[in-house]
C-alpha cells in the first residue's frame, strides 16, 4: 500500500543512477547532423561583415547559417536571436549556426567564422540607468503596490532602518545544459528538448514556423535540472529547428557551458532600498521596499524582489516599488524562487538590523509583527502555522543559548555567529490534465504531459494514483514529457505537484467510479448491483463495506469485459477563491557560521529549517528539495556571482571553475523538517509545493549570522572574504 507522505524512493532512481535515463540530447537518430552556435563578442551594434568561407571549406560542414541566408521565420520576434537581422543586442548573442557531420567538425568550423561588427553605444551602467528606469510587472502582477500611508508610518516611527542591499547577476547552470534535437517530416516537426515546458515549446515553434500546433511533437523524458532557465523557449531551440529545416537533416544543438552565460537567461542584478519604521517596542509602522533590477534591451523580465514584503509582516503602511533598468545583456528570467530569494534576503537582513537597533532578539521581532491575515488583501491565509515553525526550528537549533551581541560567541579560535530569517513562497497552481489506465494484466499507467525536472513527479504521479486506487505503486508506470499526453503546465513556481497531483487524483477517482460501475452492472460480479458508496478498494480488489465477503478483483473484472483496458482522464484547476484566502507557504530558518578571525573565510556549519508547506506527498523527495533550496541560499549568500566586464558587457567567469557554487566541503549539517499540516482549503491533497521555499530566507539567515560573528554588515552579495577584512 502507499499511504501518501511515505518516503517512497524515486521510481526513476535506478534509471538515473545507472545512466539509463534518456536525456534529450541522448536520442540516436539516423542522419543526425550537429549544430554549433557562433556568438557575438560585442554587446551592441550591427554585424558589418561575416566571412564564413574558411568555415565552409572545413570537411564535413553541411551549412553555415547566418543573417542573410537563414530561412525567414514568419513568427520571429525581437526577443529571440534567430538570424533574422544583423543587429546585436548583447554579448554572446547567437549570430551564426554551423551544421556539420560531426560535432568536432562543427566546432572547428565555428571557430573559423570571422565576424566584423559596427559597434554602437551599449547600455552597461546599471546605476546610471536608474533615472530612465520604468515600472514593470511579474506574471501579470503589477510591480508597484502600496497600502496605507508609508510617509505617515515613517513619521510615527521611533526607529528607522534605511539601507541598500544589492545582489549580483546569477546564472542557473543545471548539470544538463540546454539541448535540442529537431527533425522535420514534411511540415511536421518532432523535437527532443531539455525543457520545463513541452507545450510552451510546441506553441512557440508552431508560431515561429507558422504551422498548426498539432504538427509539432515535443518530448522530454528527463530534465537534468532547470531552475527556471528551461522554462522559456530560447533562441537555440528555434535555431535547431531552423537548421534542420534548411539542411533537410535532423539536427542536434547542445549548448556548451560558456554558452549558458547569456542567451538562456539569468537572475538579474538587484539594488534594493529598504526603509523600515518601527516603534520602540518593535511594532512595524512602515515598510518601503524599492527595487531596481536589470532587464535586457529586447525583452522585459522583472525580478519581483519586493513581492514577499507584501505578505510577510503585519504592517499597516507598505510601499513596494519595482523599476526596470534595460541593459545590453541577455534577457534575465525566472531563477529558483524568482524575486523571493533576492527579496527575502534584503527584507530579512533589514529586519535583523532593526532587531539589533532595538536590542531585541530577532525572533522576538518577527513574533511581534506576526500576521494571520494577508496584510494587503486582509483576507486570511488558507493555512498558516509559522509560529510552529519558529518555535520548532528555534528548539532544534538551540536558539535560546544565543548571546545577543555581535562577536560574542567563539569556538576555539573561530568566531561563531547565529542568524535567522523567515522563509516564504506563494502557493500557486495551474490547470492540469492527467489520465489513469488500468491494464487487463492488473498493472496500470498514469500519464500527464508534465516534465520531470528532478522534482520527482514520476514518483508523485505514481504515489497519488496508487493511493487513490489502493494498489501497490509497483504496479504503475508513470508516463510524461510528451505533447501527445493530456496537457500540464510549465514545471516551475513550485506548482508541479500542486497542479498535476490533483489532476491525477481526479483521474484516478473517475477510474475508480468506472470500475465500480462496470462491476455493479456485471451480473457475474459479486458486486453486482452494488452502490458506489458501499464499495471499498484494497490491493487491487473491490469489496462491499457492508459485506466484506463480497469482493471482485480488477484483473478478473477486466477479463470478463473483453480484456480491454479501462481509462479515465481529468482536467482540474485546483485552488481557492483569492477573495477568500491568500495562499502562501512559510518557514523559519536558522544558520550558524564559523569565521576565521584573521583571514575571514566563512563556513556555514549548521542550518536548521522548519517549513509549513501543506501536506508533504513524499517525505524523501521533499527533503531533497528543501536541502537543495538551502544549499542555493548558502550559495546566494556566499558564492554565486556572475562577473561582467562592464566595459564591454562580456561575462568573464562563464565556466564552472570560475562561477562559484558551493562544494561539499562548504556545506555543513542541514536539518530540515515540516509541520506537514494539509492545506485542506486548497484541494483534496492539500499540498502547496516545496521546490523553492528553501532558498528564501536562507541567504539572509547566513548573512545575519556573519554579522553576528564579525560585527560587520555586508550588504552586497556574495559575502566573500575580501569584504570582511
Amino acid at each position: 500500500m502507499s499511504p501518501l507522505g511515505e518516503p517512497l524512493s524515486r521510481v526513476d532512481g535506478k534509471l538515473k543512477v545507472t545512466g539509463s535515463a534518456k536525456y534529450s540530447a541522448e536520442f540516436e537518430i539516423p542522419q543526425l547532423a550537429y549544430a554549433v552556435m557562433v556568438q557575438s563578442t560585442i554587446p551592441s551594434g550591427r554585424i558589418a561583415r561575416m566571412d564564413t568561407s574558411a568555415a565552409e571549406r572545413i570537411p564535413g560542414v553541411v551549412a553555415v547559417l547566418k543573417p542573410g541566408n537563414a530561412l525567414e521565420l514568419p513568427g520571429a520576434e525581437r526577443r529571440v536571436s534567430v538570424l533574422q537581422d544583423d543587429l546585436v543586442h548583447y554579448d554572446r548573442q547567437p549570430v551564426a549556426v554551423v551544421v556539420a557531420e560531426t560535432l568536432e567538425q562543427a566546432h572547428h568550423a565555428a571557430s573559423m567564422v570571422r565576424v566584423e561588427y559596427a559597434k554602437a553605444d551599449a547600455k552597461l551602467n546599471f546605476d546610471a540607468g536608474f533615472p530612465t528606469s520604468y515600472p514593470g510587472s511579474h506574471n501579470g502582477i503589477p510591480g508597484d503596490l502600496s497600502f496605507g500611508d508609508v510617509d505617515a508610518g515613517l513619521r510615527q516611527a521611533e526607529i528607522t532602518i534605511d539601507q541598500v542591499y544589492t545582489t549580483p547577476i546569477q546564472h542557473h547552470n543545471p548539470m544538463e545544459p540546454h539541448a535540442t534535437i529537431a527533425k522535420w517530416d514534411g511540415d511536421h516537426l518532432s523535437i527532443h528538448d531539455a525543457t520545463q515546458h513541452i507545450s510552451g515549446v510546441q506553441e512557440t515553434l508552431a508560431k515561429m514556423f507558422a504551422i498548426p500546433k498539432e504538427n509539432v511533437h515535443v518530448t522530454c523524458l528527463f530534465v537534468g535540472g532547470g531552475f527556471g532557465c528551461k522554462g522559456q523557449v530560447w533562441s537555440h531551440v528555434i535555431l535547431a529547428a531552423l537548421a534542420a529545416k534548411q539542411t533537410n537533416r535532423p539536427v542536434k544543438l547542445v549548448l556548451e557551458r560558456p554558452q549558458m552565460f547569456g542567451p538562456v537567461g539569468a537572475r538579474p542584478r538587484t539594488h534594493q532600498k529598504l526603509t523600515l519604521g518601527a516603534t520602540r517596542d518593535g511594532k512595524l509602522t512602515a515598510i518601503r521596499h524599492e527595487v531596481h533590477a536589470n532587464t535586457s534591451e529586447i525583452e522585459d523580465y522583472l525580478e519581483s524582489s519586493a513581492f514577499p514584503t507584501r505578505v510577510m509582516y503585519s504592517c499597516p503602511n507598505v510601499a513596494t516599488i519595482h523599476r526596470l533598468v534595460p541593459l545590453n545583456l541577455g534577457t534575465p528570467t525566472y531563477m529558483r524562487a524568482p524575486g523571493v530569494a533576492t527579496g527575502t534576503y534584503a527584507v530579512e537582513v533589514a529586519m535583523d538590523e532593526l532587531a539589533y537597533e532595538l536590542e531585541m532578539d530577532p525572533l522576538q521581532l518577527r513574533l511581534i509583527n506576526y500576521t494571520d491575515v494577508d496584510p494587503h488583501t486582509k483576507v486570511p491565509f488558507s493555512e498558516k502555522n509559522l509560529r510552529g515553525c519558529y518555535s520548532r526550528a528555534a528548539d532544534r537549533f538551540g536558539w535560546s543559548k544565543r548571546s545577543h551581541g555581535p562577536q560574542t560567541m567563539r569556538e576555539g579560535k573561530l568566531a561563531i555567529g547565529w542568524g535567522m530569517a523567515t522563509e516564504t513562497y506563494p502557493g500557486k497552481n495551474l490547470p492540469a490534465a492527467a489520465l489513469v489506465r488500468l491494464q487487463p494484466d492488473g498493472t496500470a499507467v498514469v500519464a500527464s504531459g508534465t516534465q520531470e525536472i528532478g522534482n520527482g513527479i514520476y514518483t508523485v504521479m505514481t504515489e497519488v494514483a496508487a493511493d487513490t486506487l489502493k494498489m501497490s505503486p509497483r504496479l504503475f508506470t508513470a508516463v510524461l514529457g510528451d505533447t501527445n499526453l493530456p496537457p500540464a503546465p510549465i514545471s516551475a513556481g513550485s506548482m508541479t505537484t500542486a497542479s498535476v497531483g490533483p489532476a491525477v487524483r481526479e483521474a484516478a477517482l473517475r477510474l475508480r467510479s468506472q470500475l465500480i460501475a462496470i462491476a455493479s452492472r456485471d451480473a457475474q460480479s459479486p458486486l453486482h448491483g452494488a452502490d458506489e458508496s458501499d464499495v471499498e478498494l484494497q490491493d487491487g480488489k473491490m469489496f462491499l463495506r457492508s459485506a466484506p465477503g463480497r469482493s471482485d478483483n480488477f484483473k478478473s473484472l477486466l477479463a470478463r469485459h473483453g480484456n480491454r483496458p479501462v481509462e479515465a482522464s481529468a482536467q482540474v484547476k485546483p485552488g481557492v477563491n483569492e477573495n477568500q484566502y491568500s495562499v502562501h507557504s512559510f518557514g523559519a530558518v536558522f544558520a550558524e557560521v564559523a569565521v576565521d578571525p584573521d583571514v575571514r573565510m566563512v563556513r556555514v556549519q549548521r542550518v536548521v529549517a522548519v517549513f509549513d508547506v501543506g501536506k508533504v506527498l513524499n517525505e524523501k523527495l521533499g527533503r531533497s528539495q528543501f536541502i537543495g533550496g538551502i544549499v542555493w541560499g548558502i550559495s546566494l549568500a556566499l558564492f554565486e556571482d556572475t562577473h561582467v566586464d562592464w566595459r564591454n558587457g562580456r561575462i568573464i567567469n562563464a565556466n564552472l571553475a570560475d562561477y562559484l557554487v558551493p562544494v561539499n566541503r562548504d556545506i555543513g549539517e542541514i536539518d530540515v523538517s515540516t509541520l506537514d499540516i494539509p492545506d485542506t482549503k486548497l484541494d483534496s491533497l492539500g499540498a502547496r509545493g516545496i521546490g523553492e521555499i528553501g532558498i528564501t530566507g536562507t541567504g539572509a539567515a547566513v548573512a545575519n549570522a556573519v554579522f553576528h560573528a564579525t560585527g560587520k554588515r555586508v550588504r552586497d552579495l556574495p559575502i566573500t572574504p575580501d569584504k570582511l577584512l
Partner: protein
Amino acid sequence: MQPFKYRREENSAAAVAAIGQLEHSKFLAGGTNLIDLMKNGVERPAALVDINRLPLAKIEALPDGGVRLGALARNSDTANHPLVRERYPLLAYAILSGASPQLRNLATNGGNLLQRTRCPYFMDTGFAQCNKRDPGSGCGAIEGFNRMHAIFGTSEQCIATHPSDMCVALAALEARIVIMGPQGERIIPIAEFHRLPGDTPQSDTTLRPGELITSIDLPKSPYARHSHYLKIRDRSSYEFALVSVAAALELDGDTITSARLVLGGVAHKPWRLEQAEKILTGNKMERHLFAAAAHTGMEGAKTFRYNRYKVEMATRGIRQALGVAGGVA
C-alpha cells in the same frame, strides 16, 4: 578546437626529438590545462607529443637526503607519497589544496609547473586584448575586472598571476627543475624558472622551446617539522587562491634559525619574501615579529581597482601562516 597531429613517445630522447621535428608542437601530459586551452582556442598546436608513457613517474630518495619527483608523477601520487609527506609536508599540503581530486589524479608535476595563468582575458578569445595570448594587443585586465590579479612584479603589459599552489611550496623548498633539451641536460633553480611579465608576457618561464622537464629535485630540508601552507580562497575546495602563503621555519627552541616565506596568487611567479625571511631569522617567535615580517613583505605592493584587498589579506595570511608553522597560533 583545431585538428592536430598526435604522436606518442616511449622515452625522453624520442620525445625531445619529436618535438623538434614537428612544427608548432607541444608536449601532452595530464592535459588538464592544455586541452582546456585548446578547446578555448587559446592554444592552437599543430601537433601533440604524448609523454605519458615516458618513464618519468617515479618518486625517489636522492643520496644527499633530498627527493626526486618525476615530471610525470601525478599530483595526487606526489602529495600522498611517504617521502613527500615525511620530508616535505608543506608540498603535500600545497598540492592537496589545489584543484580537485579528479584533476590531481591526472595533473602531472611537470604540467603543474607549466600551467598557464587563469586570467579571464587570457582564457577567452572573445576578449580582443591580451598581451600574453596575442602580443601587442593590450592588457584587458589592467583596467578590467582584476580581483584575482597580481600586486607584485606587474608590468604595463601584464598583471596576470601564476595560479599554481605546488609551485609556491617548491619555491619555499628551493627546488631545482631538471630539464632535457636538444643540447642535453640542464638544471634551473625554481626561483629562475618562472619569470615576470616585463615586455614579453607571452613567456611564462625560462624553459626553451623543445625542452622537456624530466624531474623536480628537492634538496634536503630542515623545515619538515615547522611549515604551513595557508590558502585563502572564495570557497573551501576546487578554487584558486586569492592569496596563499607558504611558511617554513627552522627553530631552536623559540628562536628562528632560518625561514622561508613565499606568497602565491600575488605575482606572475611564486613571490618569495627574502627581506621578511631576514627579519625573522635569528629572532624569537613573537606576534610583533610576524607582523613586522608581514609588513616588510608587503612593501612595494601595487594594487589595481579590484584587488586592493590583497595587501591586507596577505598581511593577515603571513601572520597566521607563520603562527601555525611555528606552533604558536
